[in-house]
């Protein structure tokens, strides 16, 4: 692995940029692995990286039906935050936020994590009460979050409309300064490069058709488009397609897959200093380093695997953005896209064992996948019952549910379009 540095940039500049090598090899599958991870997104690649780095397990394959990071990892609106209400969620997401902090140095790959602050707007009395409860709960959990008056919110984010007669009046805001954005592709690429350097095989364009189980019911491997690949353990990290993959192992999941859409504007000069989320009107906005406004929408009401979603939702989101930020009402939008998010009934992630021996799952992150530290969770999962995994479980105050399809932890807010 070529180490990236200022020196490497200068050296390659002077030699006509002919010295750069591929960041990771595109592997062909071997016959047998210790662990197969289904899904090469941020979570799957992260799990592979931490398995190799922290547990020394390098006979690992990460298999994806498309290209690496081409699913929700490359389709989200790059927001990273940890201001969740419940203790378990706050711990899980705050731990993830800690990891984000040193990730660029650790991976020797610039994930462009920018702590620009995430501000969540309160538009009605319920929002005010709910967000203040979040602020108190977060502070008790050692998660930074504070309450802003409308004037303070306006000072922090000047484009905000706080006039009293606004369609969606701003009654205050909760601000998490540690939160921010990151380059979502770079996370997948950074993990892939670092994991591949430790011997992990990354197999792209190879759909997993089914999980195969032996006569004793335990997992023996996966059937793929490139034939059968054996594995001692299989971890599924397939986001919106988790239900489909798990069904092949006869495990039914408490998941539904919904389209979640996002769009970007034409690039403009720096105008928007932070991330603003408005859960009530389903509008999420930040500005990328390229200058595009990155806007997130809510989930569509119907389940779908189309990776598209409907235009009425986009219209609603853009209308809300124009109301809350009138400065943007002449802005032109460049493109929109959709991803497929896997949503659990309580909007909390599922990480851990399944009723099938040697099969593990990491799913249900819904609209919040990028921030989650599933990497570590799946890692603990793939280790099954050994001491390290048990420690990880204790740290997260979670144990297996008596009759859940899988261990559950975290406790998201019961709202639809959070990210």
């Amino acid at each position: 692995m070529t180490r990236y540095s200022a020196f490497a940039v200068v050296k390659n500049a002077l030699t006509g940029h002919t010295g750069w090598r591929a960041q990771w090899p595109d592997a062909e599958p071997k016959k047998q692995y210790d662990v197969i991870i289904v899904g090469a997104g941020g979570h799957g690649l992260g799990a592979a990286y931490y398995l190799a780095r922290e547990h020394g397990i390098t006979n690992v394959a990460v298999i994806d039906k498309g290209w690496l990071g081409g699913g929700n990892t490359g389709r989200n609106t790059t927001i990273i935050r940890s201001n969740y209400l419940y203790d378990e969620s706050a711990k899980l997401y705050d731990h993830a936020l800690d990891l984000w902090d040193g990730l660029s140095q650790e991976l020797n790959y610039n994930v462009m994590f920018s702590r620009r602050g995430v501000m969540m707007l309160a538009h009605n009395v319920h929002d005010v009460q709910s967000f203040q409860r979040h602020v108190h709960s977060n502070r008790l959990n050692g998660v930074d979050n504070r309450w802003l008056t409308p004037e303070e919110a306006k000072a922090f984010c000047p484009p905000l409309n706080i006039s009293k007669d606004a369609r969606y009046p701003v009654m205050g805001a909760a601000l998490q300064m540690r939160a921010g954005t990151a380059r979502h592709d770079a996370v997948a690429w950074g993990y892939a490069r670092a994991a591949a350097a430790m011997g992990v095989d990354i197999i792209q364009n190879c759909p997993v058709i089914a999980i195969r189980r032996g006569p004793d019911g335990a997992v023996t491997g996966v059937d793929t488009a490139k034939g059968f690949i054996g594995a001692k353990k299989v971890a599924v990290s397939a986001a919106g397609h988790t239900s489909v993959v798990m069904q092949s192992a006869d495990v039914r999941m408490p998941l539904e897959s919904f389209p979640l859409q996002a769009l970007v504007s034409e690039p403009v000069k720096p105008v928007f200093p932070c991330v603003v989320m408005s859960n009530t009107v389903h509008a999420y906005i930040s500005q990328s380093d390229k200058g595009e406004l990155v806007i997130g929408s809510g989930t569509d009401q119907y389940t779908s695997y189309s990776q598209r979603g409907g235009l009425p939702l986009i219209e609603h989101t853009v209308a809300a953005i124009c109301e809350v930020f009138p400065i943007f009402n002449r802005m032109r939008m460049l493109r929109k896209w959709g991803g497929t998010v896997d949503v659990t009934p309580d909007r909390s992630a599922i990480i851990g064992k399944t009723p099938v021996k040697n099969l593990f799952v990491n799913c249900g992150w819904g609209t919040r996948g990028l921030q989650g530290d599933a990497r570590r969770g799946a890692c603990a999962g793939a280790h099954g019952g050994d001491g390290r995994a048990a420690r990880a479980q204790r740290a997260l105050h979670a144990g297996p549910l008596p009759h859940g399809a899988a261990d559950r932890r975290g406790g998201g807010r019961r709202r639809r379009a959070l990210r």
Partner: protein
Amino acid sequence: MLLIHCPYCDETLPEAEFAYAGEAHIIRPADPSTLTDEEWRDFLFIRSNARGPHYERWRHVHGCARFFNAVRDTVSDRFLLTYKAGEKRPDLASLGVAE
């Protein structure tokens, strides 16, 4: 924008008039007090989440306000059929879809 045919109004109308109401043909337990925790879990939370033809309920909320059922392909979002609530679940073969 989905175009949805309401079997009561017998009109094909834009998605904005309708509300999605989850998977169809999930039968409410006849005697809830006898259910085990596992059966409650399956009834409340476990869904087929089908990739392909999916049986689902819709409500014509800004029209006749009635619930009806539909079969929709969740990959193309194309509706294969809508039918009135209470009607028998059509099998996929009759819709020209491989099961």
